Structure formats: structure tokens, C-alpha cells
């Protein structure tokens, strides 16, 4: 396989005014990009590690379905929820997974509108992660209704009650928001993948590969008249996905904010949830990409510059989350509502203080280390921080959901919530499903958007070449920066 071994790693994280940062390293050409990315999918047998990982994740997925079977046959008594804390891990896990999805849309849509060329190396992977995370998220609201056989009542479908859902309920808004998000993400992902599926079709050596990739490539021939409409549709889909992704986690936050529970009934929730979602999603993308680039020879595509940029976004959104935590506390005190102040003091110093301080240390303190470039560009350090952020963001949803419910207005109804083994195994099983889908994706679909990566290579540009290298910042630099760059040489 081409370039399986990379000796040392070129450091392209330095910003030199006037000199664009190269996005694709190691002298890759159009041909070698195709060979490298398709080669991963075309090897007749994946590495042994893939089989081992797949066996583990499939076992966890089987366990997930066993837990769902137990839940449906026995009822939600198998969970730790009680009459005080009616929303337990099911809601925590739902918000956790749907939030993770947001990074994929941010990378694919918002960075596209902002003309961030570095996104081309990672957008396919991040979008795939979005869809798999939303699949995991979708399970939890469906099962937490208790009577799963009546789950179609969530949708405005004619039923034997001759009743319709209540459109003034945020829980119904959620059905529409998450449903639209899953659908539009899938359309966007598939649209971007069609040209790459055509590449796999045209390189197919066996009849089966040709037929299957051929069907999904729907006859794409790279016609420029097609590209013209394709690019317009892609831009429109990006423009639609951008407000959509902001709306989805806003609507998820309405599930809490529209209620009157202390600690939930706040106006800061929509922006705070969106920032947290992007924060957690980037951490999950990083968690997957750092090993994937190593294992699949993608270092020249997903360079340290790409990871450095992602870590800066984690730093920014992590700081927003930290600000939101502080502002919630301030408003709880400044607002002068006794129940609200109690809810926050209770979070930090009550029976769930342990969860609160795990959240604070993982989400507020750990990303601040990314101020240091040495940490931002060190693979082991960033991976450890990603893990911390993943943990912290799960705990954030736990703290929000459980602490407010366990002690609300009436002390006689206070209760402590503890998950059961079924809760824990269901959540672990959802990771099995997520990673099973990720492993199938890396085995059968192009992990890097080849057609998009080729557009940011110098050879693709009409005025590219040695005199005008093409890469990040190209065209975005003020003229005086360019002049200063010339003087420096």
C-alpha cells in the first residue's frame, strides 16, 4: 500500500504570515490520494485488530439489545428511576449522544460556509460520526416512554384515539428537531459521498463491488455540468444545516428550560447547550481521529495543523461552557429566587457534589491546557484531554437532569437517584452500537472526502504551483500581512 510508513512527522502547525499552511503533506498527488484512501477499503482483509475490535463492539451491541428486551418485557422498573427522579440515564444518554453529533455538522456545514479548507480532510469522518451518534441518541427517547409499543404516538399519525399530539410541548418539538436533523445529516453525508463512491465503483476489481458501489454511486460521471449543480446543492445544504444544528440542541434544551424546575428554567440554556454539544462532539471526533490517522496511514491528510485547529475550537467552546456554568451560578444568586439559589448550591455541595466537580474539572479545567501549543500539538496529551471532555460532558447532562429533579420545591419528596446495572449496561451497549457502525464505516466507505481534498491541493488551482502554494489562509490574508511575509524572507 502506498505510504504506509511515515518516518517522522512534518510539523505544519507554525503560522508564517504570507505563507499558506500546506494541508496535504508528503508530496501527495491526485493519484496517490485516490490510492491511499481507496486502498483502506479495497484491502481484501482488514488488519487483525479490526476483527478483534469488531467482535467486542458487536458483543456490546448484542448486550444493548438484551437490555432493551429486558426493559420492554419487565417495564422501566429495571431502571433506577423513581417517582422523584423520573428522568434518569435515558435522558442523560440521549442528550449526550445527540450533542456529540453536533461536531460533525459544525465541521461539514459551518466550516464550509466559513471557507475553512482544512475541514476537507476530516468532514467525511465527522459526518459519519454525527449519523452514528444520532442513531444511538434516537434509541433512548424511544425506549424511555416505557410503553414502547405506543411510541408512534410521538408522531402526528392517525390513531385509534382520534387524537393528535400537543404541538405546544417541547417534547414534540424534539421529535421534529431530531428527526429533521437525522434526515438532513444523512442527505448531506450521502450527497458528499456520491463522487467518492463513483471512484470506488470505477476501481472495483470484483463484480460485487462494482454492482454495490455502482448502485450507491447512482451513475455519477464527474460531468462538470453535474458538478455545477452539485456544488450549488451542497452549498444550500450547508446553509440549511447551519441553522438546523443550532436549532436542534436549542430545542433539546427547551425540554428542560420550558419547565419550571429550579436549575432548568433558565434562558441561557439554548446557547449553552449548543456550545456544549460542539465541545463534546469535537472531543469525540478527536478521540476517533487520532488513532484512525495512525492506523490507516492518513497522517499526510489529517495533519497536526488539522488537530491543532480542532483543539482551538475545543478550547473556545470549552471556555463558553465554563462561562455558562459561572453565569448560571451568578444568575441564581442575582435573581434572588430561593429555590433557584438552592438548586445551584445543592449541585455544588449537595449529595451529587462528586458529579458536579467531575464535570467542572473535566469540562472547565482540562480544555484550558490547550492554551499551550505544546499540549495542543501533542498527540497523547490531546487524546487524554478528549477523553476527559467526553466524560465531563456526560456528567454535565447527568448533573443537569438528576440534581434538579432529586431536590425540587418540596423537601418531603426529595430522593436520591442511583442507576441500576441495567442502566449501566444499556449505556455501555450504546457505545458498542456506535463503534460497530464506525468500524463498518472505515471498512466499507471512503473515510476521507477524496474529491474535496483534491480541491485544496496546489495542483488543483488555476494559479497554483511553486510560486503560489495553496493551503489554509490562502486568500484570507490581508495584503499587509503578505507584504510583511515578503520582507521576512
Amino acid at each position, binding site marked *: 500500500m502506498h505510504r504506509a510508513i511515515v518516518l517522522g512527522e512534518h510539523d505544519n502547525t507554525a503560522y508564517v504570515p504570507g505563507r499558506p499552511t500546506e494541508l496535504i503533506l508528503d508530496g501527495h*498527488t*491526485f*493519484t496517490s490520494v*485516490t490510492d491511499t484512501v481507496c486502498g483502506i477499503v479495497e484491502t481484501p482483509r482488514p488488519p487483525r485488530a479490526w476483527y478483534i475490535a469488531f467482535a467486542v463492539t458487536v458483543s456490546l451491541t448484542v448486550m444493548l439489545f438484551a437490555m432493551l428486551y429486558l426493559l420492554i418485557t419487565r417495564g422501566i422498573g429495571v431502571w433506577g428511576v423513581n417517582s422523584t427522579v423520573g428522568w434518569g440515564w435515558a435522558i442523560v444518554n440521549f442528550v449526550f449522544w445527540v450533542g456529540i453529533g453536533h461536531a460533525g455538522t459544525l465541521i461539514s456545514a459551518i466550516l464550509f460556509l466559513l471557507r475553512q479548507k482544512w475541514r476537507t480532510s476530516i468532514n467525511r469522518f465527522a459526518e459519519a460520526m454525527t449519523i452514528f451518534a444520532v442513531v444511538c441518541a434516537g434509541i433512548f427517547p424511544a425506549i424511555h416512554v416505557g410503553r414502547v409499543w405506543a411510541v408512534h404516538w410521538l408522531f402526528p399519525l392517525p390513531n385509534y384515539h*382520534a*387524537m*393528535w*399530539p*400537543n*404541538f*405546544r*410541548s*417541547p417534547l*414534540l*418539538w424534539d421529535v*421534529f*428537531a431530531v428527526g*429533521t436533523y437525522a*434526515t*438532513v445529516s444523512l*442527505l448531506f453525508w450521502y*450527497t458528499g459521498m456520491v*463522487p467518492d463512491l*463513483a*471512484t470506488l*465503483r*470505477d*476501481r472495483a476489481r470484483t463484480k460485487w463491488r462494482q454492482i454495490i458501489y*455502482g*448502485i450507491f454511486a*447512482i*451513475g*455519477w*460521471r*464527474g*460531468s*462538470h*455540468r*453535474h*458538478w*455545477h*449543480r*452539485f*456544488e*450549488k*446543492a451542497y452549498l*444550500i*445544504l450547508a446553509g*440549511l444545516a447551519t*441553522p*438546523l444544528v443550532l*436549532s436542534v440542541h436549542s430545542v433539546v434544551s427547551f425540554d428542560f428550560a420550558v419547565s419550571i424546575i429550579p436549575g432548568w428554567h433558565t434562558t441561557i440554556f439554548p446557547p449553552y447547550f449548543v456550545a456544549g454539544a460542539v465541545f463534546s462532539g469535537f472531543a469525540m471526533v478527536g478521540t476517533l481521529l487520532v488513532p484512525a490517522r495512525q492506523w490507516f496511514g492518513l497522517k499526510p491528510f489529517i495533519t497536526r495543523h488539522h488537530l491543532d485547529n480542532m483543539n482551538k475550537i475545543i478550547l473556545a467552546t470549552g471556555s463558553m461552557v465554563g462561562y455558562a456554568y459561572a453565569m448560571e451560578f451568578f444568575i441564581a444568586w442575582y435573581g434572588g429566587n430561593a429555590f433557584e439559589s438552592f438548586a445551584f448550591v445543592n449541585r455544588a455541595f449537595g449529595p451529587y457534589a462528586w458529579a458536579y466537580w467531575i464535570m467542572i474539572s473535566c469540562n472547565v479545567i482540562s480544555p484550558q491546557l490547550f492554551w499551550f501549543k505544546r499540549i495542543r500539538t501533542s498527540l497523547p496529551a490531546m487524546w487524554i484531554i478528549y477523553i476527559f471532555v467526553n466524560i465531563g460532558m456526560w456528567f454535565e447532562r447527568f448533573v443537569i437532569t438528576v440534581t434538579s429533579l432529586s431536590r425540587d420545591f418540596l423537601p418531603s419528596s426529595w430522593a436520591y437517584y442511583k442507576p441500576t446495572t441495567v442502566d449501566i449496561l444499556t449505556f455501555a451497549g450504546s457505545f458498542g452500537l456506535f463503534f460497530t457502525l464506525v468500524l463498518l464505516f472505515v471498512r466499507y466507505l471512503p473515510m476521507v472526502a*477524496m*474529491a474535496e481534498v*483534491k*480541491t485544496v491541493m496546489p*495542483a*488543483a*488551482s*488555476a494559479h497554483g504551483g511553486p510560486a503560489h502554494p495553496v493551503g489554509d489562509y490562502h486568500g484570507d490574508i490581508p495584503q499587509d500581512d503578505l507584504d510583511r511575509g515578503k520582507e521576512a524572507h
Partner: protein
Amino acid sequence: MYGLVVEFDDPRRLVAACAKVREAGYRRWDAHTPFPIHGMDAAMGIRGTRLPWLVLAGGAAGLGAALLMIWWMNAVDYPLNISGKPLFGLPAAIPVAFEMTVLFSAFAAFLGMWIANGLPRLHHPLLQHEPFRRATSDRFFIVIESTDPRFDPQATRALLASLGGLAVTEVQEQIHEEGAGR
């Protein structure tokens, strides 16, 4: 014969060549590239697509459908009195109306683009042409169809050969059609 193709290995040459084909007055021709190339719209004389208008119509349909649905379901067909609030109120209808606007717009963009491009289409003469397999990887092609009014086997071949490409080749129609005695 379906048409004549010329192959390039450099996108910059392709852009210049497309301008020449266009100046020669051909109409049924196309360029095939592994990725979109800037400057090609102008070189080929492609006019803007009307897709955005279709998306606008899709979005308007989604918005209208959502508002109508919410109003009819909660205020007309089965009036639901929730805490004495109005049976239909715009603020509470906005989230669902927004989501359906986006959903319908996205489907309009997705379906509209593929249908306007004449896809899905699982058979095409070009897909049987062996050199064309690299059109989705690292080669760039110009195709002039034999149905073009200006198409002339000799003159068109000479024009394509003069463009600085690698090789000019003939693309046959599908094999079963030849068997039927064209």
C-alpha cells in the same frame, strides 16, 4: 459511436481546452473531472442553475404545511386545551414550523439536484469506456457527443487533438444497441 473524448492530466490545461471547444460552437459536449474545478463555469459557458428557487419553493411548502398541520390538528380537528392557552399560537408553533421548513428545503435541494442532473442513471456509454475509469480519480476528460450538429468525425477529432491532451479516443454506444444493427 457515442462521441470522441480527449484526456488530460492537468486541470489547468483542461480549463483552457474547454474554452476552445466552446468557441468552436459545440453544444452537446461536457467535461468530466474528479473534483469541481474553479473557472470551468466561465470556460464552458454554464449558466447559473435555478436550483435555489426550487429550494425556496420547498421551504415555503414546508412552512405552510407545518403551520396548517399544527392549526388543524390542535385547534380544529381535536381542540386541545392546555392550561387555557390559545388553541393555536404562533410562538409555540415556530420550532416545528422551522424544522419542517428545513426538512422540505433539504429534500428539494437533494432531489432537485439529482433529477436535474439526470441521475440516478446506472448505464451510460462513458462508463463502459476503459480510460474513462480514471475520470473519478486523477484524469480530466472532454467529451463531444456525435449527436452534436457540428460533429464531424475528422474535424472534431482534429480539434480535440489540437488541445494539448494525452490521447483522443472513440466512445462506442452500448454493446447491445450495436448488436441491434444501428
